[in-house]
């Protein structure tokens, strides 16, 4: 087993959706894969609002009913002046149960032949002649050192693997969303509705969400920009104020804390013997904050490249760079568009947000869509309209 085995084709650091997807695809491609997860349990603690689109999920898997807490087909936006705007989503979404979902993704990787080890904390990488050749860490109190042709940093928002290797993965303060969420029950919500509260009052530089998990249960969370967090009021305070106002009788089942990097994808995603995937590579959608599908997509692309590279040529940067190229071809351009849109909407005042809500209210219900909404949002900045059309057409 892994303890005796000194060398692997790939060692993946982190067992979230990006890491597990990489591990599965690499193992299916005939590579020996070791996945190291620092926590005792895959998928726990959840650090996520758990929303995902049906179309996005289907790129990888037929949605399993066990993963799905609720199916969403409508969206409700609440403006700072409490104007409410609703419309149907052209594509349905889900609120997942990440504990079950992440478990299954890891299980798929394991069935494909990857070895998964929990409670394995990686605290350094091994570099020889400017190439990454392995990792060091502790497993249940015992030190270990393992070598790999490719080390994969799937270590989430912390992204230390990349930094140890000298890649620039540090997230700028303004591009870190500080997240705090409570899964609450004893409330009354529309179980098929995404609800977003947009206001400096509720969530400066971010948004507050109510994602239902059934009729009486929801993930209610807030993400505020680090830029505004600087003013001294934490995400927790924002959420607690909201809950006291809106759902004073709610019982709290779980508390979730976490940072969401809404940055441009890191310029350099690979180097000799190293690849970065998921949050660690900043693949999160900068407008929505959604990271599950882009993370899995990066894991898939990286693994496909790794399989080709190791069967043909080796783990040199020039062979791994195809992953960077593919990422930019498939998702990266859109990612940059989303980033530009985010940079503008991030600065909206409450008056701007009220104006947008009024604008979309004036559109007949059947005609409302995310494309319309964002087109109205960027009216003051027409140069962004093209970006909006490219990323929201069809959504």
């Amino acid at each position, binding site marked *: 087993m892994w303890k005796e085995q000194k060398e692997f084709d790939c060692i993946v650091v982190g067992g979230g959706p990006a890491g597990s997807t990489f591990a599965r695809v690499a193992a299916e491609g005939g590579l020996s894969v070791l996945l190291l997860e620092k926590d005792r349990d895959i998928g726990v*603690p959840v650090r996520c609002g758990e929303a995902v689109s049906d179309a996005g999920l289907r790129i990888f898997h037929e949605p399993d009913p066990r993963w799905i807490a609720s199916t969403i087909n409508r969206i409700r936006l609440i403006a700072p002046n409490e104007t409410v705007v609703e419309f149907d989503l052209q594509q349905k979404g889900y609120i997942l149960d990440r504990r079950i979902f992440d478990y299954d993704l890891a299980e798929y990787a394991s069935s494909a032949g990857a070895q998964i080890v929990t409670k394995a904390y990686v605290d350094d990488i091994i570099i020889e002649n400017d190439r990454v050749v392995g990792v060091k860490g502790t497993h249940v109190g015992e030190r270990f050192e393992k070598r790999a042709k490719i080390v994969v940093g799937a270590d989430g928002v912390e992204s230390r693997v990349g930094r140890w290797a000298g890649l620039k993965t540090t997230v700028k*303060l303004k591009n870190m969303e*500080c*997240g705090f969420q409570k899964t609450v029950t004893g409330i009354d919500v529309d179980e098929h509705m995404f609800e977003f509260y947009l206001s400096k009052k509720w969530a400066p530089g971010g948004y507050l969400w109510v994602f239902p998990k059934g009729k009486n249960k929801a993930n209610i969370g807030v993400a505020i920009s680090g830029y505004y967090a600087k003013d001294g009021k934490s995400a927790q305070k924002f959420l607690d104020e909201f809950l006291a106002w809106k759902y004073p009788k709610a019982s709290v089942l779980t508390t979730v804390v*976490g940072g969401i990097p809404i940055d441009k994808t890191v310029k350099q995603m690979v180097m000799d013997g190293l690849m970065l995937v998921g949050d660690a590579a900043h693949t999160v959608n900068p407008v929505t904050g959604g990271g599950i599908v882009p993370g899995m997509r990066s894991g898939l692309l990286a693994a496909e490249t790794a399989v080709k590279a190791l069967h043909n040529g080796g783990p040199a940067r020039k062979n791994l760079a195809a992953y960077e190229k593919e990422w930019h071809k498939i998702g990266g351009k859109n990612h940059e568009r989303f980033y530009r849109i985010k940079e503008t909407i991030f600065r909206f005042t409450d008056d701007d947000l009220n104006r947008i809500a009024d604008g979309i209210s004036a559109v007949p219900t059947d005609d409302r869509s995310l494309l319309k909404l964002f087109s109205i949002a960027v009216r003051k900045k027409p140069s962004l309209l093209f970006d909006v059309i490219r990323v929201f057409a069809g959504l």
Partner: protein
Amino acid sequence: MIEIAENKCDFCGCCVGVCPVNCIEVKEAEISVDHDICIDCDICVYVCPIEVLSQTDPRKSSKAAA
């Protein structure tokens, strides 16, 4: 100096992601700051969603006094 209220920490790693000098380490249920490397920039204090980190020197921090 950055102080950690360890019993409050959820170990989410948000602070690690923004630390410009990579001086914070978060394990499954442990957090530590390497004060020899730390430059007291306070970015970790700002981003912490649940106010685990604080700057003990009030001259350096706007948030410590809050």
